[in-house]
């Protein structure tokens, strides 16, 4: 992130005054959010805070009651090809008769347009994406034979072949094994290194500081957003999670980590239960 001075790049995603309501129940109130290009951003908040809804509203998968979304300075519809989406793993029918390679190839469908089928070039790209997530040996497997972590890595590969510059991921670390978590983080950092933007709905507060550059704290309205060491404070967490904060102790890293330094890349607190020394 040395290639450009902050301020010269248009934001990856700019959300203005976004309100979403299911029926008469507002789920998101007047959200303003700017996602910086080339950063890893976590969207954090309690259950029912509207995290998934925020991502879906950006992607126009749920109707907006009000507000605007711009991607790289353009309306979302014009910049759709720049955005890849990794949905929640649990929302799929994994018994669907298809192979891992086939699923990854779906990432190329948007580029192919109507009717055209993926060919040799797309297959090669899909295999490369599978290699990146360490799943190339599973290309011919049926998708139901994968573990949760493997499913997530395949989803990630599908997003990689989309050749997008912005990646929206809904809980990519949900229920995956430690090895997969490491592999995913590795891929996210590679994406960042080439200037891509990643936005993750994220649950494990312990790892926010370690994995992400920026954080957005959400609970129906936007509580705070910005660089992790500015926005990810106990006070903001308390605002986002209400009074139920005892489990938050220490996760922000300010009061409990030695020397107050941000946790290193291989720091403690890797597991959800390992709250600190």
């Amino acid at each position: 992130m040395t290639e450009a001075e902050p301020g010269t790049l248009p934001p990856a995603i700019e959300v203005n005054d976004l309100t979403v309501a299911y029926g008469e129940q507002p789920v998101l109130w007047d959200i303003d959010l700017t996602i910086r290009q080339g950063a890893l951003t976590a969207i954090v908040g309690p259950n029912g805070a509207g995290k998934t809804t925020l991502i879906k509203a950006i992607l126009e998968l749920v109707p907006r009651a009000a507000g605007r979304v711009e991607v790289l300075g353009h309306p979302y519809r014009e910049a759709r090809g720049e955005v890849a989406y990794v949905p929640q793993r649990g929302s799929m029918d994994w018994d669907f008769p298809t192979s891992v390679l086939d699923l990854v190839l779906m990432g190329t469908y948007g580029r192919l347009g109507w009717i055209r089928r993926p060919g040799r070039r797309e297959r090669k790209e899909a295999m490369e994406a599978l290699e990146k997530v360490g799943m190339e040996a599973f290309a011919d497997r049926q998708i139901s034979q994968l573990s949760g972590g493997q499913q997530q890595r395949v989803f990630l590969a599908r997003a990689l072949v989309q050749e997008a510059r912005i990646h929206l991921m809904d809980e990519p670390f949900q229920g995956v094994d430690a090895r997969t978590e490491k592999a995913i983080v590795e891929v996210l950092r590679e994406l960042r290194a080439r200037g891509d933007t990643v936005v993750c709905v994220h649950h494990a507060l312990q790892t926010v500081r370690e994995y992400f550059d920026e954080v957005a704290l959400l609970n129906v309205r936007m509580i705070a957003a910005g660089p992790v060491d500015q926005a990810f404070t106990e006070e903001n967490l308390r605002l986002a999670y209400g009074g139920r904060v005892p489990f938050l102790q220490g996760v922000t890293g300010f009061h409990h980590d030695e020397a107050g330094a941000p946790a290193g890349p291989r720091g403690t607190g890797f597991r959800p239960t390992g709250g600190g020394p």
Partner: protein
Amino acid sequence: MSSLDLEIQLLAVVVAVACALPGVFLVLRRLALMSDAISHSILLGIVLAFFWVQDLAHPILVLAATATGVLTVALVEALHRTRRVKEDAAIALVFPALFSMAVLLIARYAGNVHLDVDAVLLGEIAFSPFRRLEVAGRDLGPRSLWLMGSILALNVAALAVFWKELKVSTFDAGLAAAMGFSPAVIHYGFMGLVSVTAVGAFDAVGSILVVALMIAPPAAAWLLTDRLPVMVVLSGLLAALSAVAGFWAARALDASIAGSMAGMAGVVFVIAILFAPDRGVVAGIRRRARQRLEFARTMLMVHLLNHEGGARARVENRMDHLQEHLRWSPDFARRVVRRAERQGLLVRESGGGLRLTPLGREEARHRMVR
């Protein structure tokens, strides 16, 4: 109105109400299509038992058919449990096979007796008054009226006795199990009740229209009330209404009474879904129109609060900004602002700026925390 007409209508009402009572729980327990499966496959039980006893009036037919109905439920669940097919496909595989066997057996071996394929679909409610129940030479009325009457009584009794169990297991299966009611026993007992009802009604209205009488009136009632006891009573009333209206419509068209009853049940449902006071489509449209302004006003409050005191407040909290950012038409924006102003929630500053009053701030905070 002849006594014949009266007897047909009485039977129609009894059948419809008997179907609607268990139907309430079919709808609430998401088992509506199980009734479709049961009402088809009971035919196989009837046919097989008929081949055995050679008498269409023999009570063993009712028993065999009921057993087939329960067996169907078990088969669907067994097939689903293999995890080789999804539940909807399991239903769609089991009952056509059993029903096909029954239809073939009738067409092949029983074509001449009083059991033909048309009756399977149409029912014979128009003819049922001709089959009388006579005890010691005295005419006690149509046989099927006695049969359906007993089934109705059985349903009422079962609902009364097992009301608590049915209710708890329908709304909270886990709680029911914790309270010591075996979900399996309740489930299969209930499906047995549905089967008996389907068998009795089958004679009068045929296998497919049973489904209309079991599902449509309870579904309509569910749109009209949130309370279970009210829903049960209302289902019975709507079912009776459909039966009588269906009878007269069929009379006017000289067409199938059973089909017409099903059609009327559909009409009642459509009326309910359109005009139900709270949950109807029309009420929904009117409410949304009313609430749109209300919602917009609250949205404005929240918007102003969020940007209050911020660096961009001067830009965001302005009349002309609303049109741009909230995508409101100028006219709509003016109406919303005027409404909020009248309620004392905000004040307009010179130059187009908008500022919340303390009351408005309170309101916005209150709405945001839900």
